[in-house]
């Protein structure tokens, strides 16, 4: 597989992530789709790193992995505080704030 095959896979993963965030209504699934987008970007960075023969892309990926872990920690904490107050993980039930 060449570098552009990896790019195509990354682009497809990224699109699945974007569509998932826009169409799904379960907060956990939306959150997983965001993680999918981050990982698509990682795949893209790694294969570009190979293309250009420098390490910048790979260093970037390490940073992104750390950031993704931090996001999980904070995101799940936010969701737990919501579930404690109101027993739902559906984004359409959280509609106190509108207009």
């Amino acid at each position, binding site marked *: 597989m060449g570098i552009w095959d990896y790019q195509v896979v990354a682009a497809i993963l990224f699109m699945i992530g974007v569509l998932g965030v826009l169409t799904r209504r379960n907060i956990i699934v939306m959150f997983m789709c965001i993680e999918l*987008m981050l990982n698509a*970007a990682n795949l893209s960075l790694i294969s570009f790193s190979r293309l250009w023969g*420098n390490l910048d892309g790979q260093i970037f990926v390490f*940073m992104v992995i750390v950031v993704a872990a931090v996001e999980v920690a904070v995101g799940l904490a936010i969701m737990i*505080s919501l579930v404690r107050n*109101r027993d739902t993980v559906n984004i359409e039930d959280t509609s106190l704030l509108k207009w």
Partner: protein
Amino acid sequence: MMPNLDLSAISPMIFVAVGAILLPLLEVLLARMIERRRSWLGRTVNREMASTAIVIFTVLLLVLALLRTVGTFDLPVAHFNLDHPMIAVDQLTRFLNAVLLISAILTVLVSSRYLADIGMDHGEFYALLLASLLGMMLLGAATDLIMLFLALELMSIPIYALAGFQRSSLKSNESALKYFIIGSFASALLLYGCALLYGATGTVELAEIARGFDPENPLTLLGAALVLVGFAFKIASVPFHQWAPDVYEGAPTTVTGFMATAVKVAAFGALIRVVAVGLQPGAEIMYGVFWWLAVLSMTVGNVMAIIQQNTKRMLAYSSVAHGGYMLVGICVGTQSGYAGLLFYLLVYTFMTIGAFTVLAILTRDGREVSRIDDLAGLHETHPFAAIVMTLCMFSLAGIPPLAGFWGKWYLLTGAVERATAIGDTSLIVLAVVLVMNSAISLAYYLRLPVVMYMREARGADRPDATAGALQTTVLWVCALAIVLIGVVPGDFLILFGDYDLIASARVAASAVSP
């Protein structure tokens, strides 16, 4: 090989980082002292003493960082790591850091009393605030896509937690959740944009990206577009603004004030650097995008603000509109355009923090004064808060001679100068739209003074305001800043030496402008 590090270049950031790390430890230590009934200076440690100690410690660190930043303003560009310059501490960085630190200091001073009022007086609030502030300071300084992304996340993640800080409140939960989903979605878009830019140019340094930038290459264009969309989400520019009113309304009031000011300052600072350095060769293509973003943000923000009944939502739409005004500076894209934008950020910080401080003061026993009509009769119950609110509203609307007028003035002159220099009528159109929008905005900004001064308070709903000493201080600072910057926009702060704010903004802008 020893790395060639210069710690003094980032000393203000080190102060903030030290605070973010030490504050949770201090909180635990104090909680233990309360539990064990230890005494200090002859008095048993109680909750009030503990929170006072935490506030003093935080403010001390922030003031030290601010003094250091202002004191080193005129020094040449400094880099933390000369071999791999990921952070550039130039005049732009220092100017942004000063504004960010001012915003953080004011927020901390208001928050101590406000947090006690909503029953959430925990020390980790300040730790999260400082962590986020550190991210903002680094964001304005980042000259490298890796640093840019890391700083953006360090800024955003603590803010998600702060938005949901009032754990027992459903509104606060919902606000945090929406901000979290939208914010991380925007970050992921920006990250993929960074990946594509890296793929197109083979480097993550902004200056190198500019060298490898090829407007014909679809990879470059897509990457740049995704990065800009990510930023548009962060600065809540129409059509990526839907989250802002919900998040601003649900978050604790002082956090909203911090979000509305500091996040905008940092994101615009980074946007200036990205647009003026990294994507400079694509300026002509981006001009059209920014033109539309600016026009839409101004118009939609102002029109939507008119129909709001909730004060915080109204201010949220107003901040969307102000984001549009600031984008005019990006459209102009010259030194005077960026200088106008930077000056506007400073002025906007004082006006917005002032308005949110009044709202924070009116919160009693966890009950917020949410509807605009609830402010009726404020001039009787708390005349000073009513005066400051009126000043902030007039200044946001851009009525001379207050500070907000000069903010718009410099943006407009920048746009007109540039338009006459290159003979471009679209910039003139933009300037006209800005002026028209300022007129529209009067409709809702003047509504608050009318309600506060011309309507009687209704029995049970009288706004009950007893501001703490620190909160009154913040009101004074905001009011004085709005009036003083307005009356002497040229050489403001004569007390602190010959310090010319707009000239400083020009110097700061020259750090990146071509």
